[in-house]
C-alpha cells in the first residue's frame, strides 16, 4: 500500500524515536546499575539471577562510605570470613572520601577555571590576531595526544625536585596544562563564530577593545565557554592515572579514592564503590543542571543559529 508523504514522515519519526529510546537505555544502563547497586545489601551484588531493583534497599553502603559508620551485622548481608569465622570488618578508617571530595573540588575546579580563562584568551588571540599559526595550533593539540603514561616518569622526578609531588598545586598545574589544548580549540571554535564585523561595529561606535570583548564577544560565546568548562571539568574530575602516580599520601582525589575500594584484601566491595561513585557523580550532575540552558547551545558548536 502506498503511503502518503505525511504517513511516511510519521513512520520515520516513530522509527527514529524507537532507536533513540533503545540508545538511551544502553547509555543509561550503567548509571542505573551504579545507583541500584549502591542501595543493595552485600549479598545481592553478585546474586544470580541479577537483582535489578532491590527489595531490601539499604543506606548502609552510603553510611559506611560517607559517614564511616562501621557497625555491621549478618542481617545486613555481611560475609563471614571463612578463616576466622567472624564478620568481615572493612577498614574504612583508612579511607577519607570527604578529604578526597574537597581535594577534587579544589583541583578540578581551579584547573578547569584556569584552563578556560587562559584558553579562551589565547583562543581570542588566535582567532582575531593569529598569534599562533595554524601549525602551532596543531602542535598544541598534539601535545594532548601524548599518552599521559609517557609523562609520568619525568614529571614525578621533576616534581620531586621542586617539591610539587603530592601537592594540590602540582596537580592543578598539570591538569591546567593538559586541558589547555582542549580549552583553546573548543573556545576558538566559538569565537570564530562571532563575525569580526560585529566587533568592528562596536569599535567604531566608540567601544574600547575591552568593552567590545565584554559587551559583544563574551555574551555571544558564553554558552560555548560554559560547555567547554563542563567538558574539561568532567575530564579533570575523573582523571585517575596522573592523580594516582603524582600523589602519595596527602593529596587524594576521588577517582583514586574510588580505587581503594577495589582490589583490597577484603575483595571487591561493589556496593561501597557504587555509593562513592554516586557521590562523585552528583556534583557533575549538579553543575550540569545549573548550566543546562547553555549546554544545548554550546555543545551544538554553533550549529544551531543564535
Amino acid at each position, binding site marked *: 500500500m502506498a503511503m502518503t508523504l505525511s504517513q511516511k514522515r510519521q513512520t520515520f519519526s516513530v522509527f527514529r524515536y524507537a532507536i533513540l529510546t533503545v540508545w538511551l537505555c544502553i547509555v543509561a544502563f550503567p548509571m542505573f546499575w551504579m545507583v541500584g547497586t549502591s542501595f543493595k545489601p552485600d549479598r545481592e551484588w553478585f546474586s544470580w539471577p541479577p537483582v535489578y531493583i532491590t527489595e531490601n534497599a539499604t543506606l548502609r553502603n552510603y553510611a559506611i562510605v560517607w559517614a564511616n559508620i562501621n557497625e555491621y551485622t549478618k542481617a545486613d548481608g555481611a560475609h563471614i570470613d571463612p578463616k576466622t569465622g567472624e564478620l568481615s570488618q572493612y577498614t574504612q578508617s583508612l579511607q577519607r572520601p570527604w578529604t578526597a571530595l574537597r581535594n577534587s573540588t579544589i583541583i578540578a575546579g581551579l584547573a578547569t577555571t584556569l584552563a578556560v580563562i587562559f584558553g579562551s584568551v589565547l583562543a581570542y588571540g588566535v582567532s582575531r590576531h593569529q598569534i599562533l599559526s595554524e601549525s602551532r595550533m596543531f602542535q598544541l593539540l598534539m601535545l594532548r595526544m601524548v599518552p599521559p603514561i609517557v609523562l609520568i616518569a619525568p614529571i614525578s622526578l621533576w616534581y620531586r625536585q621542586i617539591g610539587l609531588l603530592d601537592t594540590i598545586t602540582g596537580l592543578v598545574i598539570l591538569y591546567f596544562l593538559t586541558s589547555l589544548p582542549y580549552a583553546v580549540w573548543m573556545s576558538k571554535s566559538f569565537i570564530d563564530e562571532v*563575525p569580526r*564585523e*560585529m566587533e*568592528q*561595529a*562596536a*569599535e*567604531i*561606535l*566608540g*567601544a*574600547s577593545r575591552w*568593552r567590545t570583548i565584554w*559587551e*559583544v564577544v563574551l*555574551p*555571544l560565546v558564553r554558552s560555548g565557554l560554559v560547555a567547554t568548562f563542563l567538558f574539561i571539568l568532567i575530564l579533570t574530575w575523573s582523571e585517575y592515572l596522573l592523580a594516582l602516580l603524582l600523589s602519595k599520601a596527602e593529596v587524594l582525589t576521588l577517582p583514586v579514592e574510588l580505587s581503594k575500594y577495589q582490589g583490597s584484601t577484603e575483595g571487591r566491595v561493589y556496593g561501597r564503590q557504587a555509593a562513592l561513585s554516586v557521590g562523585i557523580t552528583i556534583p557533575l550532575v549538579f553543575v550540569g543542571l545549573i548550566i543546562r540552558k547553555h549546554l544545548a547551545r554550546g555543545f551544538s558548536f554553533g550549529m544551531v543559529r*543564535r
Partner: protein
Amino acid sequence: MSRIELKDLRKEFGNTVAVNDLNLTIEDGEFIVLVGPSGCGKTTTLRMIAGFEDPTSGQIELDGKIVNDLEPRDRDLGMVFQSHALFPHKNVADNIVFGLRMQNVGKEEQLKKLHEVSELVRISHLLTKMPGQCSGGESQRIALARTLVTEPSNFLLDEPLSSLDAKLRRELRAECDRLHAELQKTFVYVTHDQEEAMTLADRIVVMDLGEIVQMGSPIDIYSDPVSYFVADFFGNPAMNLIEGEFFKEGDGIEFRSDSFNVSVPASYNNMTPGKGTFGIRPENVNVSSSKGDGSRKIGLVEPLGKDTLLYFETTATRPFVAIVDGTESYSAGEPVELTFPDENMFLFDSNGDRIRS
C-alpha cells in the same frame, strides 16, 4: 565641516597590491560612491578610512589632520556593514543606543535621541524586538539608525544593500538618498552595483585593480567612459561591445568584425588602424524595418512594458541588444536594419583605452 583626503594611499597583502597609491579628496557633504568589481580595492580603501586596515604607505587625512594612527572610534565616523552586524543578544533599542552609551550620554538624552532616530528611519515599532526577529530590510534600517544616532560627520557604507532583494534594495536606496539630503553629511558608499552607484552618487569613483579608473558625475561616467572597462561596467543592459579591427579605407576608417561592419565617422580619421572594439549603447541603436541588404534577423524579443529588448545573435558570447519603444511590435525572426548614430559610437583600442575623435 569634514573633508576626507587620501594621499598616495597604498595597501599590500603579502605580494598582492590591493590599493595602489590612491589619491582622492572627498568634499564635505558629498555622496561619493566607490564602485568596481570584487577585488578592485574599494572595500579595502573604505576599511582604511575606517581604521580597520593599516595602510602600507600613504596618508589618510580628516579635516587636514592625519589620522593614520587614530583608533576607529576616534575618527568621527559611522559605518554600516554589509552584514548589518547588529548585536544579536541586545534588543533593537539597546542596539541603537549602544554608541551613545559608549560616549557616556545621559539616560534621558539617550531616550530622546533613540526616538528621534527611529522616527527618522521609521523603525519605531521595532524597538523592543530582537534583531533575529527582524527582516533583512528592517535590520538594515536598524543598522543605519545605530550609526546615525551618534551623529558622526562621515558615513561609511560597505555594500549595505547587497544582502537584500531587489525591491527592498530600491526602497532602501531611496532611503539613503533621503537621509543624505536631510543630514547633509559626507557619505562614502561602496558597492559593486552600477545601478546603485548611478542613482546615489554625487560623484562616482570607478576602481579596478586597486586604482581609480575614472571619477566623475554619474552622467559623465555613463556618457563619456574613458575605457572599455568603464563602458562595459555602467549601463543595463550593458553597452554592445564588438571586437574587431579598424582598417584604413581611402580617407576614412572602417571597422570590420564577424558580425558588423561600420564606417567610422570622419572625425576619427586621424586614429591609428588596428585591432579594437566598437561600442554602442542598446538605447542608441536605431532599428528600422527592412527587407533589403544588411538586414539581420531578430533572435529574441523581450517586452519589458515601457521598452522592448531585441536580441541579435553574433559570433561573440554576448548577444547584441537594442532597446526599442514598448509600443512598437517586433517578432522573433523578423529581419530589421540596424543603424548607429555617429555621435553615439564609442571606439576602444586594443588596450581597452578610449579612442577620441
